[in-house]
Protein backbone atom coordinates (compact mmCIF):
# COMPACT_ATOMS: atom_id res chain seq x y z
CA UNK A 1 0.00 0.00 0.00
CA UNK A 2 1.17 3.49 -0.71
CA UNK A 3 0.33 6.67 1.14
CA UNK A 4 2.01 7.89 4.30
CA UNK A 5 2.65 5.54 7.22
CA UNK A 6 1.18 8.04 9.65
CA UNK A 7 -1.01 11.03 9.01
CA UNK A 8 -2.40 13.23 11.74
CA UNK A 9 -4.98 15.90 11.05
CA UNK A 10 -5.96 18.46 13.66
CA UNK A 11 -5.13 16.06 16.48
CA UNK A 12 -6.29 17.34 19.84
CA UNK A 13 -5.74 15.40 23.05
CA UNK A 14 -7.01 16.24 26.49
CA UNK A 15 -6.70 14.67 29.91
CA UNK A 16 -10.02 15.52 31.50
CA UNK A 17 -10.48 19.22 30.85
CA UNK A 18 -6.78 19.94 30.31
CA UNK A 19 -5.87 19.99 26.63
CA UNK A 20 -2.26 18.92 26.11
CA UNK A 21 -2.10 18.66 22.32
CA UNK A 22 -3.68 21.58 20.53
CA UNK A 23 -4.64 20.46 17.07
CA UNK A 24 -1.52 19.34 15.24
CA UNK A 25 -1.20 17.95 11.72
CA UNK A 26 1.71 16.13 10.15
CA UNK A 27 2.56 13.22 7.90
CA UNK A 28 5.26 10.60 8.11
CA UNK A 29 6.04 8.88 4.81
CA UNK A 30 6.99 5.22 4.74
CA UNK A 31 10.54 4.16 5.58
CA UNK A 32 11.43 7.50 7.07
CA UNK A 33 13.17 8.01 10.37
CA UNK A 34 11.12 10.78 11.86
CA UNK A 35 12.33 12.52 14.98
CA UNK A 36 10.22 14.39 17.51
CA UNK A 37 12.11 16.70 19.82
CA UNK A 38 10.92 19.08 22.45
CA UNK A 39 11.09 19.79 26.16
CA UNK A 40 9.25 17.76 28.78
CA UNK A 41 5.47 18.19 28.89
CA UNK A 42 5.30 19.12 25.22
CA UNK A 43 3.05 16.16 24.37
CA UNK A 44 5.53 13.86 22.63
CA UNK A 45 4.76 10.70 24.60
CA UNK A 46 1.02 11.41 24.59
CA UNK A 47 1.21 11.69 20.81
CA UNK A 48 2.82 8.27 20.51
CA UNK A 49 0.18 6.77 22.75
CA UNK A 50 -2.51 8.02 20.39
CA UNK A 51 -0.90 6.15 17.50
CA UNK A 52 -1.48 2.70 19.04
CA UNK A 53 -4.38 3.82 21.19
CA UNK A 54 -2.79 2.78 24.46
CA UNK A 55 -3.99 6.24 25.49
CA UNK A 56 -7.31 4.42 26.03
CA UNK A 57 -5.85 2.97 29.23
CA UNK A 58 -5.38 6.43 30.71
CA UNK A 59 -8.31 7.60 32.73
CA UNK A 60 -10.09 10.61 31.26
CA UNK A 61 -7.92 10.88 28.16
CA UNK A 62 -9.70 11.57 24.88
CA UNK A 63 -8.50 12.72 21.49
CA UNK A 64 -10.22 14.16 18.46
CA UNK A 65 -9.14 14.79 14.92
CA UNK A 66 -7.96 12.12 12.55
CA UNK A 67 -4.98 9.90 13.19
CA UNK A 68 -4.42 7.62 10.24
CA UNK A 69 -2.00 4.74 10.59
CA UNK A 70 -1.31 2.75 7.45
CA UNK A 71 -4.40 4.16 5.79
CA UNK A 72 -6.81 3.44 8.62
CA UNK A 73 -8.26 5.94 11.09
CA UNK A 74 -7.26 4.63 14.53
CA UNK A 75 -10.62 5.70 15.94
CA UNK A 76 -12.41 3.42 13.53
CA UNK A 77 -10.05 0.47 13.61
CA UNK A 78 -11.90 -2.76 14.27
CA UNK A 79 -9.15 -4.79 15.89
CA UNK A 80 -7.24 -2.50 18.21
CA UNK A 81 -4.84 -5.34 19.10
CA UNK A 82 -3.85 -5.68 15.45
CA UNK A 83 -3.25 -1.92 15.39
CA UNK A 84 -0.95 -2.25 18.39
CA UNK A 85 0.93 -5.05 16.68
CA UNK A 86 1.33 -2.82 13.65
CA UNK A 87 2.88 -0.09 15.82
CA UNK A 88 5.86 -1.25 17.85
CA UNK A 89 6.42 0.80 20.99
CA UNK A 90 9.56 1.11 23.09
CA UNK A 91 9.19 2.92 26.41
CA UNK A 92 11.84 5.21 27.96
CA UNK A 93 12.70 2.83 30.78
CA UNK A 94 13.59 -0.75 29.90
CA UNK A 95 10.89 -3.20 30.91
CA UNK A 96 11.96 -6.81 30.89
CA UNK A 97 8.85 -8.79 31.66
CA UNK A 98 9.30 -11.23 34.54
CA UNK A 99 9.49 -14.09 32.06
CA UNK A 100 12.37 -15.88 30.41
CA UNK A 101 14.24 -14.04 27.66
CA UNK A 102 12.67 -16.38 25.14
CA UNK A 103 9.17 -15.82 26.49
CA UNK A 104 9.70 -12.07 26.53
CA UNK A 105 10.17 -12.05 22.79
CA UNK A 106 7.66 -14.82 22.10
CA UNK A 107 4.96 -13.11 24.16
CA UNK A 108 3.52 -11.00 21.37
CA UNK A 109 3.49 -13.74 18.67
CA UNK A 110 1.84 -16.05 21.18
CA UNK A 111 -0.73 -13.41 22.08
CA UNK A 112 -1.44 -13.11 18.35
CA UNK A 113 -2.12 -16.85 18.21
CA UNK A 114 1.15 -18.35 17.01
CA UNK A 115 2.11 -21.46 18.96
CA UNK A 116 4.31 -23.53 16.62
CA UNK A 117 7.67 -23.95 18.33
CA UNK A 118 9.73 -23.71 15.15
CA UNK A 119 8.04 -20.50 14.08
CA UNK A 120 8.54 -18.97 17.50
CA UNK A 121 12.19 -20.04 17.58
CA UNK A 122 12.78 -18.27 14.28
CA UNK A 123 11.06 -15.08 15.41
CA UNK A 124 12.95 -15.01 18.70
CA UNK A 125 16.30 -15.41 17.00
CA UNK A 126 15.55 -12.87 14.27
CA UNK A 127 14.35 -10.21 16.73
CA UNK A 128 17.19 -10.71 19.18
CA UNK A 129 19.65 -10.45 16.30
CA UNK A 130 17.98 -7.29 15.04
CA UNK A 131 18.17 -5.78 18.51
CA UNK A 132 21.88 -6.64 18.73
CA UNK A 133 21.31 -8.85 21.74
CA UNK A 134 21.48 -12.38 20.29
CA UNK A 135 25.18 -13.01 20.83
CA UNK A 136 24.95 -12.04 24.49
CA UNK A 137 21.95 -14.15 25.40
CA UNK A 138 21.81 -17.03 22.93
CA UNK A 139 23.15 -19.46 25.56
CA UNK A 140 20.70 -18.46 28.24
CA UNK A 141 17.38 -17.92 26.54
CA UNK A 142 15.68 -19.54 29.52
CA UNK A 143 17.22 -17.03 31.91
CA UNK A 144 15.05 -14.28 33.30
CA UNK A 145 14.53 -11.15 31.24
CA UNK A 146 14.48 -9.10 34.42
CA UNK A 147 17.92 -10.37 35.39
CA UNK A 148 19.59 -8.69 32.43
CA UNK A 149 21.44 -5.40 32.77
CA UNK A 150 19.65 -2.16 31.97
CA UNK A 151 21.12 -1.83 28.49
CA UNK A 152 20.39 -5.45 27.68
CA UNK A 153 16.83 -5.08 28.94
CA UNK A 154 16.35 -2.07 26.69
CA UNK A 155 17.50 -4.12 23.70
CA UNK A 156 15.19 -6.91 24.87
CA UNK A 157 12.38 -4.37 24.87
CA UNK A 158 13.27 -3.45 21.30
CA UNK A 159 13.37 -7.13 20.33
CA UNK A 160 9.91 -7.51 21.85
CA UNK A 161 8.66 -4.50 19.93
CA UNK A 162 9.96 -6.07 16.72
CA UNK A 163 8.52 -9.50 17.49
CA UNK A 164 5.07 -8.65 16.19
CA UNK A 165 6.52 -7.43 12.90
CA UNK A 166 5.43 -3.82 13.20
CA UNK A 167 5.32 -1.53 10.19
CA UNK A 168 6.01 1.45 12.40
CA UNK A 169 8.45 1.45 15.30
CA UNK A 170 8.08 4.17 17.91
CA UNK A 171 10.96 4.73 20.28
CA UNK A 172 10.31 7.01 23.22
CA UNK A 173 13.62 8.32 24.50
CA UNK A 174 14.98 4.81 24.33
CA UNK A 175 18.49 5.83 25.29
CA UNK A 176 18.00 7.61 28.61
CA UNK A 177 18.69 4.48 30.64
CA UNK A 178 21.55 3.02 28.62
CA UNK A 179 25.18 3.74 27.95
CA UNK A 180 26.53 5.52 24.84
CA UNK A 181 28.10 2.37 23.34
CA UNK A 182 24.83 0.46 23.45
CA UNK A 183 23.04 3.54 22.17
CA UNK A 184 25.28 3.64 19.12
CA UNK A 185 24.72 -0.06 18.48
CA UNK A 186 20.97 0.43 18.59
CA UNK A 187 21.23 3.45 16.30
CA UNK A 188 23.03 1.24 13.79
CA UNK A 189 20.21 -1.27 14.08
CA UNK A 190 17.67 1.47 13.42
CA UNK A 191 19.47 2.55 10.27
CA UNK A 192 19.34 -1.04 9.02
CA UNK A 193 15.65 -1.36 9.87
CA UNK A 194 14.81 1.78 7.96
CA UNK A 195 14.60 -0.15 4.69
CA UNK A 196 11.77 -2.26 6.08
CA UNK A 197 9.83 -0.06 8.48
CA UNK A 198 9.00 3.50 9.45
CA UNK A 199 10.62 4.75 12.62
CA UNK A 200 9.33 7.49 14.93
CA UNK A 201 11.99 8.59 17.33
CA UNK A 202 11.13 10.74 20.32
CA UNK A 203 14.31 12.00 21.82
CA UNK A 204 15.75 14.64 24.07
CA UNK A 205 19.16 14.15 22.55
CA UNK A 206 19.35 16.71 19.82
CA UNK A 207 22.49 15.04 18.50
CA UNK A 208 20.72 11.72 18.16
CA UNK A 209 17.92 13.24 16.10
CA UNK A 210 20.50 14.96 13.92
CA UNK A 211 22.38 11.70 13.37
CA UNK A 212 19.40 9.54 12.52
CA UNK A 213 16.39 11.44 11.34
CA UNK A 214 15.51 12.51 7.83
CA UNK A 215 13.01 15.00 9.15
CA UNK A 216 12.54 16.43 12.62
CA UNK A 217 9.50 17.86 14.31
CA UNK A 218 9.99 20.31 17.15
CA UNK A 219 7.07 20.29 19.58
CA UNK A 220 6.50 22.74 22.35
CA UNK A 221 3.50 22.89 24.70
CA UNK A 222 1.38 20.65 22.53
CA UNK A 223 2.00 22.48 19.30
CA UNK A 224 4.32 22.02 16.35
CA UNK A 225 6.84 24.81 16.28
CA UNK A 226 8.68 23.56 13.25
CA UNK A 227 8.74 20.50 11.02
CA UNK A 228 11.42 20.28 8.39
CA UNK A 229 14.37 18.30 7.12
CA UNK A 230 16.85 17.66 9.89
CA UNK A 231 19.59 19.63 8.16
CA UNK A 232 17.36 22.68 8.31
CA UNK A 233 16.08 22.19 11.84
CA UNK A 234 19.57 21.70 13.23
CA UNK A 235 21.24 24.32 11.09
CA UNK A 236 22.18 27.80 12.17
CA UNK A 237 19.11 29.18 10.47
CA UNK A 238 16.00 27.13 11.08
CA UNK A 239 12.62 28.58 10.19
CA UNK A 240 11.80 29.55 13.72
CA UNK A 241 13.79 31.47 16.28
CA UNK A 242 12.55 29.15 19.06
CA UNK A 243 13.88 26.08 17.24
CA UNK A 244 17.30 27.65 17.04
CA UNK A 245 17.25 28.52 20.73
CA UNK A 246 16.16 25.04 21.76
CA UNK A 247 18.53 23.15 19.49
CA UNK A 248 21.46 25.27 20.51
CA UNK A 249 20.69 25.15 24.16
CA UNK A 250 19.79 28.78 24.80
CA UNK A 251 16.16 28.05 25.52
CA UNK A 252 14.57 29.76 28.45
Amino acid at each position, binding site marked *: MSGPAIAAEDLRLSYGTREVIHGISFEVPRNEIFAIIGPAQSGKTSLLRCLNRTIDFTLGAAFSGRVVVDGVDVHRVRDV*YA*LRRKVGMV*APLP*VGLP*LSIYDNVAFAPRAAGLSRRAGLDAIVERCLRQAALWDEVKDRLNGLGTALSGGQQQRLTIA*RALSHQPEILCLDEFSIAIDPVTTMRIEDVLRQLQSEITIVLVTNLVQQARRLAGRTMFMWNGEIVELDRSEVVFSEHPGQRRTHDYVHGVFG
Partner: protein
Amino acid sequence: METAVPPRFARTPSVARREWTQALARAVFFTMALAMVVPLIAIVAYLLVRAAPSLSWEFIVDVPRKGMREGGIWPAFVGTLYLVVLSLAIAAPIGVLAAIYLNEYARENWFNRLINLAVINLAGVPSIVHALFGLGAFVYAARFGYSIVSASLTLAIMTLPVIIASTREALASVPRAFREACWNVGATRWQTIRGVVLPNSISGILTGVILQVSRTAGETAPIMFTGAVFFKAVQRGTLFPYRLTDQCMALSMHLYTVSTQVPNVRESIPYATAIVLLGSVLLVNACAIAVRVWLRNRKRW
Protein backbone atom coordinates in the same frame (compact mmCIF):
# COMPACT_ATOMS: atom_id res chain seq x y z
CA MET B 1 46.00 30.81 70.63
CA GLU B 2 43.71 28.24 72.22
CA THR B 3 40.10 28.32 71.09
CA ALA B 4 36.97 26.78 72.57
CA VAL B 5 36.45 24.61 69.46
CA PRO B 6 36.78 20.95 70.51
CA PRO B 7 38.90 18.65 68.37
CA ARG B 8 37.11 16.61 65.70
CA PHE B 9 35.22 13.51 66.81
CA ALA B 10 35.43 14.54 70.45
CA ARG B 11 32.71 13.27 72.75
CA THR B 12 31.00 16.53 73.52
CA PRO B 13 27.97 16.69 75.84
CA SER B 14 25.73 17.01 72.78
CA VAL B 15 27.12 13.80 71.29
CA ALA B 16 26.72 12.03 74.62
CA ARG B 17 23.13 13.17 74.87
CA ARG B 18 22.33 11.90 71.38
CA GLU B 19 23.88 8.55 72.12
CA TRP B 20 21.90 8.26 75.31
CA THR B 21 18.63 9.14 73.53
CA GLN B 22 19.44 6.59 70.87
CA ALA B 23 20.06 3.87 73.47
CA LEU B 24 16.85 4.76 75.28
CA ALA B 25 14.77 4.64 72.09
CA ARG B 26 16.21 1.28 71.23
CA ALA B 27 15.48 -0.05 74.72
CA VAL B 28 11.86 1.14 74.59
CA PHE B 29 11.19 -0.45 71.20
CA PHE B 30 12.86 -3.68 72.28
CA THR B 31 10.76 -3.86 75.44
CA MET B 32 7.58 -3.41 73.44
CA ALA B 33 8.58 -6.12 71.01
CA LEU B 34 9.33 -8.42 73.92
CA ALA B 35 6.04 -7.55 75.58
CA MET B 36 4.38 -8.87 72.47
CA VAL B 37 6.08 -12.22 72.56
CA VAL B 38 5.67 -12.89 76.26
CA PRO B 39 1.89 -13.34 76.33
CA LEU B 40 2.03 -15.61 73.30
CA ILE B 41 4.58 -17.91 74.90
CA ALA B 42 2.77 -17.70 78.23
CA ILE B 43 -0.56 -18.65 76.69
CA VAL B 44 0.80 -21.57 74.73
CA ALA B 45 2.83 -22.84 77.67
CA TYR B 46 -0.09 -22.52 80.06
CA LEU B 47 -2.44 -24.30 77.66
CA LEU B 48 0.08 -27.07 77.06
CA VAL B 49 0.61 -27.71 80.77
CA ARG B 50 -3.09 -27.79 81.56
CA ALA B 51 -3.88 -29.90 78.50
CA ALA B 52 -1.11 -32.42 79.02
CA PRO B 53 -3.15 -35.15 80.75
CA SER B 54 -5.58 -35.38 77.82
CA LEU B 55 -3.30 -34.71 74.88
CA SER B 56 -2.79 -37.72 72.67
CA TRP B 57 -3.60 -38.93 69.17
CA GLU B 58 -6.43 -40.83 70.79
CA PHE B 59 -7.93 -37.51 71.93
CA ILE B 60 -8.24 -36.29 68.34
CA VAL B 61 -9.69 -39.43 66.77
CA ASP B 62 -11.97 -40.53 69.62
CA VAL B 63 -15.55 -39.41 70.04
CA PRO B 64 -16.78 -37.63 73.18
CA ARG B 65 -17.98 -40.06 75.86
CA LYS B 66 -20.08 -39.85 79.00
CA GLY B 67 -21.90 -36.68 77.98
CA MET B 68 -18.66 -35.08 76.72
CA ARG B 69 -17.05 -35.44 80.15
CA GLU B 70 -14.46 -37.83 78.73
CA GLY B 71 -13.23 -39.17 75.41
CA GLY B 72 -12.06 -37.12 72.39
CA ILE B 73 -13.12 -34.47 69.93
CA TRP B 74 -13.26 -36.21 66.55
CA PRO B 75 -16.73 -34.99 65.48
CA ALA B 76 -15.82 -31.41 66.29
CA PHE B 77 -12.46 -31.69 64.52
CA VAL B 78 -14.00 -33.06 61.35
CA GLY B 79 -16.85 -30.57 61.58
CA THR B 80 -14.44 -27.64 61.63
CA LEU B 81 -12.61 -29.19 58.70
CA TYR B 82 -15.88 -29.38 56.75
CA LEU B 83 -16.81 -25.79 57.53
CA VAL B 84 -13.40 -24.36 56.68
CA VAL B 85 -12.96 -26.26 53.43
CA LEU B 86 -16.48 -25.64 52.20
CA SER B 87 -16.57 -21.95 53.10
CA LEU B 88 -13.20 -21.30 51.47
CA ALA B 89 -14.22 -23.32 48.41
CA ILE B 90 -17.08 -20.86 48.06
CA ALA B 91 -15.36 -17.63 49.10
CA ALA B 92 -11.93 -18.04 47.46
CA PRO B 93 -12.99 -18.32 43.79
CA ILE B 94 -15.61 -15.58 44.07
CA GLY B 95 -13.31 -13.30 46.04
CA VAL B 96 -10.26 -13.76 43.82
CA LEU B 97 -12.20 -13.36 40.57
CA ALA B 98 -14.06 -10.32 41.87
CA ALA B 99 -10.78 -8.77 42.96
CA ILE B 100 -9.27 -9.37 39.52
CA TYR B 101 -12.24 -7.62 37.96
CA LEU B 102 -12.03 -4.69 40.35
CA ASN B 103 -8.30 -4.25 39.99
CA GLU B 104 -7.73 -5.05 36.33
CA TYR B 105 -10.91 -4.28 34.43
CA ALA B 106 -13.05 -1.85 36.39
CA ARG B 107 -12.92 1.78 35.41
CA GLU B 108 -13.26 4.54 37.90
CA ASN B 109 -16.97 5.32 38.06
CA TRP B 110 -19.72 5.58 40.64
CA PHE B 111 -20.65 1.92 40.37
CA ASN B 112 -17.16 0.62 41.10
CA ARG B 113 -16.71 3.16 43.85
CA LEU B 114 -19.89 1.74 45.33
CA ILE B 115 -18.50 -1.80 45.14
CA ASN B 116 -15.28 -0.68 46.81
CA LEU B 117 -17.23 1.00 49.55
CA ALA B 118 -19.30 -2.14 50.06
CA VAL B 119 -16.20 -4.32 50.28
CA ILE B 120 -14.56 -2.09 52.86
CA ASN B 121 -17.67 -1.85 54.98
CA LEU B 122 -18.49 -5.53 54.72
CA ALA B 123 -15.03 -6.32 56.10
CA GLY B 124 -15.86 -4.31 59.20
CA VAL B 125 -19.18 -5.96 60.01
CA PRO B 126 -19.02 -7.86 63.34
CA SER B 127 -19.33 -11.63 63.02
CA ILE B 128 -22.43 -11.77 65.20
CA VAL B 129 -24.19 -9.59 62.62
CA HIS B 130 -23.10 -11.96 59.87
CA ALA B 131 -24.50 -14.74 62.04
CA LEU B 132 -27.90 -13.13 62.20
CA PHE B 133 -27.82 -12.46 58.46
CA GLY B 134 -26.90 -16.09 57.80
CA LEU B 135 -29.74 -17.24 59.99
CA GLY B 136 -32.24 -15.11 58.12
CA ALA B 137 -30.90 -15.60 54.62
CA PHE B 138 -29.70 -19.20 54.47
CA VAL B 139 -31.46 -21.05 57.28
CA TYR B 140 -34.92 -19.53 56.76
CA ALA B 141 -35.20 -17.64 53.47
CA ALA B 142 -33.20 -20.12 51.36
CA ARG B 143 -34.57 -23.04 53.37
CA PHE B 144 -31.19 -24.70 53.88
CA GLY B 145 -32.13 -25.20 57.51
CA TYR B 146 -29.58 -25.49 60.29
CA SER B 147 -26.89 -27.21 58.27
CA ILE B 148 -23.27 -27.29 57.21
CA VAL B 149 -24.30 -25.53 53.99
CA SER B 150 -25.87 -22.62 55.85
CA ALA B 151 -22.93 -22.30 58.21
CA SER B 152 -20.36 -22.46 55.40
CA LEU B 153 -22.20 -19.88 53.33
CA THR B 154 -22.33 -17.57 56.34
CA LEU B 155 -18.61 -18.00 56.93
CA ALA B 156 -17.97 -17.45 53.23
CA ILE B 157 -19.87 -14.16 53.24
CA MET B 158 -17.81 -13.15 56.24
CA THR B 159 -14.43 -13.94 54.67
CA LEU B 160 -15.25 -12.70 51.16
CA PRO B 161 -14.44 -9.00 51.64
CA VAL B 162 -11.13 -9.80 53.32
CA ILE B 163 -10.14 -12.12 50.47
CA ILE B 164 -11.07 -9.44 47.95
CA ALA B 165 -9.00 -6.86 49.79
CA SER B 166 -5.91 -9.07 50.14
CA THR B 167 -6.12 -10.22 46.51
CA ARG B 168 -6.37 -6.65 45.25
CA GLU B 169 -3.32 -5.76 47.27
CA ALA B 170 -1.40 -8.66 45.74
CA LEU B 171 -2.45 -7.63 42.23
CA ALA B 172 -1.58 -4.00 42.83
CA SER B 173 1.96 -5.01 43.79
CA VAL B 174 2.67 -5.98 40.17
CA PRO B 175 4.14 -2.86 38.53
CA ARG B 176 1.97 -1.10 35.98
CA ALA B 177 4.92 -0.95 33.59
CA PHE B 178 4.59 -4.71 33.03
CA ARG B 179 0.98 -4.33 32.02
CA GLU B 180 1.76 -1.44 29.69
CA ALA B 181 4.55 -3.44 28.05
CA CYS B 182 2.04 -6.20 27.33
CA TRP B 183 -0.61 -3.85 26.02
CA ASN B 184 1.95 -2.23 23.74
CA VAL B 185 2.59 -5.49 21.94
CA GLY B 186 -1.09 -6.05 21.32
CA ALA B 187 -1.98 -8.33 24.20
CA THR B 188 -5.54 -8.23 25.50
CA ARG B 189 -6.24 -7.55 29.13
CA TRP B 190 -6.83 -11.22 29.76
CA GLN B 191 -3.57 -12.25 28.05
CA THR B 192 -1.79 -9.69 30.20
CA ILE B 193 -3.40 -10.99 33.37
CA ARG B 194 -2.80 -14.61 32.47
CA GLY B 195 0.77 -14.17 31.27
CA VAL B 196 2.26 -11.62 33.63
CA VAL B 197 -0.01 -10.36 36.40
CA LEU B 198 -1.27 -13.62 37.89
CA PRO B 199 2.03 -15.55 37.91
CA ASN B 200 3.58 -12.70 39.85
CA SER B 201 0.82 -12.14 42.36
CA ILE B 202 -0.28 -15.71 43.02
CA SER B 203 1.85 -16.01 46.17
CA GLY B 204 0.20 -12.99 47.73
CA ILE B 205 -3.24 -14.19 46.67
CA LEU B 206 -2.70 -17.66 48.13
CA THR B 207 -1.35 -16.29 51.37
CA GLY B 208 -4.37 -14.04 51.75
CA VAL B 209 -6.72 -16.96 51.20
CA ILE B 210 -4.90 -19.35 53.52
CA LEU B 211 -4.80 -16.78 56.31
CA GLN B 212 -8.59 -16.84 56.25
CA VAL B 213 -8.48 -20.47 57.39
CA SER B 214 -7.57 -19.43 60.91
CA ARG B 215 -10.36 -16.90 60.97
CA THR B 216 -13.04 -19.34 59.80
CA ALA B 217 -11.80 -22.09 62.10
CA GLY B 218 -11.98 -19.82 65.12
CA GLU B 219 -15.35 -18.14 64.57
CA THR B 220 -18.12 -19.34 66.87
CA ALA B 221 -21.02 -16.93 66.54
CA PRO B 222 -21.83 -17.39 62.84
CA ILE B 223 -21.89 -21.20 62.98
CA MET B 224 -23.69 -21.29 66.31
CA PHE B 225 -26.60 -19.45 64.68
CA THR B 226 -26.64 -21.43 61.48
CA GLY B 227 -25.47 -25.01 61.75
CA ALA B 228 -23.30 -26.03 64.66
CA VAL B 229 -24.66 -28.22 67.45
CA PHE B 230 -23.54 -29.17 70.95
CA PHE B 231 -23.40 -32.84 70.21
CA LYS B 232 -23.71 -35.13 67.26
CA ALA B 233 -23.16 -38.87 67.53
CA VAL B 234 -20.74 -40.09 64.88
CA GLN B 235 -18.44 -43.05 64.50
CA ARG B 236 -14.94 -42.88 65.87
CA GLY B 237 -12.34 -41.80 63.30
CA THR B 238 -14.65 -41.79 60.28
CA LEU B 239 -13.77 -39.22 57.63
CA PHE B 240 -17.24 -38.57 56.27
CA PRO B 241 -19.54 -38.46 59.27
CA TYR B 242 -21.71 -35.60 58.00
CA ARG B 243 -23.86 -34.89 55.00
CA LEU B 244 -23.91 -31.28 53.88
CA THR B 245 -27.49 -30.88 55.06
CA ASP B 246 -26.61 -32.15 58.54
CA GLN B 247 -25.73 -30.02 61.46
CA CYS B 248 -22.22 -30.61 62.73
CA MET B 249 -20.01 -30.09 65.72
CA ALA B 250 -17.08 -27.67 65.52
CA LEU B 251 -13.97 -27.11 67.60
CA SER B 252 -14.72 -23.52 68.56
CA MET B 253 -18.27 -24.42 69.54
CA HIS B 254 -17.09 -27.53 71.37
CA LEU B 255 -14.63 -25.49 73.36
CA TYR B 256 -17.44 -23.21 74.47
CA THR B 257 -19.63 -26.17 75.34
CA VAL B 258 -17.16 -28.13 77.44
CA SER B 259 -15.94 -24.98 79.18
CA THR B 260 -19.27 -23.51 80.18
CA GLN B 261 -22.24 -25.75 79.45
CA VAL B 262 -21.34 -29.18 80.78
CA PRO B 263 -20.70 -29.73 84.51
CA ASN B 264 -17.90 -31.97 85.79
CA VAL B 265 -15.87 -32.17 82.60
CA ARG B 266 -12.40 -33.53 83.03
CA GLU B 267 -10.35 -30.45 83.66
CA SER B 268 -7.83 -30.99 80.88
CA ILE B 269 -10.37 -31.50 78.09
CA PRO B 270 -11.15 -27.82 77.31
CA TYR B 271 -7.45 -27.05 77.28
CA ALA B 272 -6.65 -29.95 75.00
CA THR B 273 -9.45 -28.82 72.66
CA ALA B 274 -7.95 -25.36 72.57
CA ILE B 275 -4.53 -26.82 71.81
CA VAL B 276 -5.91 -28.83 68.89
CA LEU B 277 -7.67 -25.75 67.51
CA LEU B 278 -4.58 -23.61 67.96
CA GLY B 279 -2.29 -26.31 66.61
CA SER B 280 -4.33 -26.84 63.45
CA VAL B 281 -4.48 -23.12 62.76
CA LEU B 282 -0.76 -22.68 63.34
CA LEU B 283 -0.07 -25.66 61.09
CA VAL B 284 -2.08 -24.10 58.27
CA ASN B 285 -0.39 -20.73 58.80
CA ALA B 286 2.99 -22.42 58.69
CA CYS B 287 2.00 -23.93 55.35
CA ALA B 288 1.01 -20.47 54.15
CA ILE B 289 4.40 -19.11 55.13
CA ALA B 290 6.16 -22.02 53.44
CA VAL B 291 4.21 -21.46 50.23
CA ARG B 292 5.01 -17.79 50.35
CA VAL B 293 8.71 -18.34 50.90
CA TRP B 294 8.80 -20.89 48.12
CA LEU B 295 7.02 -18.59 45.69
CA ARG B 296 9.04 -15.57 46.71
CA ASN B 297 12.23 -17.40 45.91
CA ARG B 298 10.85 -17.74 42.42
CA LYS B 299 10.05 -14.05 42.30
CA ARG B 300 11.35 -12.66 39.11
CA TRP B 301 12.12 -9.00 39.38
